[in-house]
């Protein structure tokens, strides 16, 4: 029986120093090993998805609208010839639109989110990061979860096969992945069950909200391989996560959490693609539909139903490399609130 208390698991890891100068950071043997390992991660992700019939698209960096902010993150405005444009916080809207060209796509997408300042000490937030973004036309949530599981398992397998030297430099024992690579499917747990677990551990989790960062760390610390959390409540996610028609108030979505306390790796869902429902959901999430003109025009004219996800590249690298902080998985890290080159 695991006797780790919520308080123990939630205790912050020893504070990792903030990044040094770009020269110090880039010349560190740790950084070099991490970036080489990350190259293997990218290579393996492309290998796996390409082999499964996915087309890689290059996503836009700016647009009139992007994924609405979540958990207090601010978008970055850009003056685009006198119009307010945004740096992408997520490729989600463009991924849905792209399915009018291809049925299975992926992007390695850069994202910028001005996260709230308290995230500077979570060890797993960056203001600038990348996602392995996948979208599949006509897919269900289960289909998307299977692809996400396949990507993570393949990437980890390739790292173990090809990056043993880097893992050694980083002091990461490859045996940490034995359970992940055993072939046993990742466990699935509902949000409701996770909230109950957290309450049982004495953690005050809001049942209507995302699992908070401490809660994620608590759950993650109690597992030895990645696992899915499903069925988040409406009010905790954006308008594009589809509501379960058989279970009002619950979304057909999922998060994938890494083990060992590393927390969230990936978010995904079956997507809403019906015009009227998207408008109503936009209102429920406090959005002004007028902002989303080009997207709504496409939706009104018809886009495929789909499911997809985004895996945080730096977070996945951090987990595989066994790093204290996610910034160590970036060549030019931008920790929230810290002025960096």
């Amino acid at each position: 029986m695991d006797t780790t208390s919520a308080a123990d698991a939630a205790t912050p890891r020893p504070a990792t120093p903030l990044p040094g100068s770009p020269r110090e950071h880039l010349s560190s043997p740790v950084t070099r090993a991490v970036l080489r390992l990350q190259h293997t991660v990218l290579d393996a992700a492309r290998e796996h998805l390409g082999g499964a019939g996915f087309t890689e698209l290059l996503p836009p960096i700016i647009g009139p609208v992007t994924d609405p902010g979540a958990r207090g993150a601010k978008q970055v405005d850009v003056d685009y010839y006198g119009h307010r444009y945004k740096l992408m916080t997520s490729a989600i809207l463009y991924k849905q639109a792209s399915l009018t060209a291809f049925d299975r796509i992926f992007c390695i997408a850069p994202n910028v989110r001005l996260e709230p300042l308290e995230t500077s000490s979570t060890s797993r937030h960056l203001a600038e990061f990348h996602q392995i973004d996948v979208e599949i036309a006509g897919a269900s949530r289960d289909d998307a979860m299977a692809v996400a599981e396949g990507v993570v398992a393949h990437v980890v397998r390739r790292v173990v096969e090809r990056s043993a030297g880097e893992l050694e430099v980083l002091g990461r024992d490859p045996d940490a992945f034995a359970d992940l690579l055993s072939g046993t499917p990742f466990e699935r747990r509902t949000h409701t069950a996770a909230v109950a677990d957290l309450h049982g551990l004495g953690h005050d989790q809001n049942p209507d909200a995302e699992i908070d960062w401490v809660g994620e760390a608590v759950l993650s610390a109690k597992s030895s391989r990645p696992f899915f959390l499903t069925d988040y409540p409406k009010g905790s996610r954006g308008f594009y996560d589809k509501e379960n028609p058989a279970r009002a108030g619950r979304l057909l979505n999922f998060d994938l959490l890494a083990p060992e306390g590393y927390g969230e790796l990936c978010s995904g869902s079956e997507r809403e693609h019906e015009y009227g429902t998207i408008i109503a959901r936009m209102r429920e999430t406090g959005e002004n539909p007028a902002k989303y003109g080009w997207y709504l025009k496409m939706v009104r004219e018809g886009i495929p139903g789909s499911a997809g996800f985004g895996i945080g590249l730096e977070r996945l690298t951090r987990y595989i490399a066994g790093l204290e902080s996610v910034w160590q998985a970036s060549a030019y890290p931008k920790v929230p609130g810290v002025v960096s080159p």
Partner: protein
Amino acid sequence: MSGLRAGTFPEAAVRERARVGAGAAFPALEDYGRALFGAPDAGSSGGPPGDELDAARLVPPVFVPERLEKLIDLAREPLHGDVDLGAEVGGFTSPLPVYLSAFGSTQVASADLGRAAGAQAGALGVPMVIGENVVPVNGYGRLAGGGGRSLLGRISAYAEAVPDGVGGVVVQQSTEDADAEVWNLVYSDPSARPLLDSGRLGFELKVGQGAKPGLGGLTVVSSADGDRLSEQFAVEPVFGAESGRVLRCASPGTFTEEILRQQIRLMRNNFPRARVWVKLPPGRDVAVAAAVAWEAGADAVTVDGAEGGSGWAPTSFLAGVGLPLAECLRRIAGPTGCLLASGRVWEGLRAAKCLAAGARAVGLGRAALIAVDEDPEAGLTRLVECLALELRLLISALGKYRAGALTPDDLWSPTGWTVPARTPAGTVTR
């Protein structure tokens, strides 16, 4: 003109409309940006009472068991100075059952008076709401500047003056200006962190306000600005081309019970360390809306009676649209959360009646603006000092010694207006 007369008909108003056209649906254009609006105070000008709150009287009892409790506690006869006015106002601690309302969107409120009012509210330790108009009108206060009038200027003026442990700043955002991402901006801003870290930051979802329930923001802008804003807002040339000015109209936003519920849940999800306030217009279903908001986790529901609002509104709305504050309070009888009320409150008597009718605290809007216009350094402070003394006198006269102890029993109405009984705020039920 032929000399036609119609003495029993509002002839002058008809003639004005015949001359001016659509612009006559509004108060005189020359008052825009200079005058404060809202329903007239008919009671004080010799006319009939403005609403049932004005008509109602506070009625002290003969027998005062709570005074006996206080006497035992103090070992002497209690006086009005023994009344504790302290209140929990929407998740904040306040020395008085008072908060500073968000001001309207006219230039009057968003200019330096707003900063002066904020500094004094901070020194008083009462919570302050900053209107959603501040960022679009005066800027946020960083890269593009904006100084003291900006949102950061307003927050800083308050934060520098507020004592430890009391007060709070609530930043308003309506759905339509979600483009400005005011909440996200403040939540991730280093300048606001001391308030956030001390639990004194809140966000208010503006569903509507008293002066023009059912409408969004209406402002008057120059024709040139109108051209620039026409991409985002409806712009109407109701004042005629020769005026050089146009009406800029925002939408009130579309709400259903589910939309309101989910928006509040999203606020709690995205800003878990901020208090969540919801401002309701005086709609006929205000009680249902308030219940939905509290059930979804709102820390406070503010109801702005039809008397409320300092800003620009069509004269027909000022004269006859929206429930009076008294009726809002009657319909929300037995609030299940923190109810805040605003609408022509400026002194202790109307404030005490609101508290007796169910409100936890009252908002000062026009009164605060006029007070700081009278004296930018201390006008609001003196106004509130007077209100606080009146509240102590009134509450002690009712044989009570806490602001939250007032109940509908303390009210009598000559018109038969009644508020159903409820549990007084702060009462522990077993």
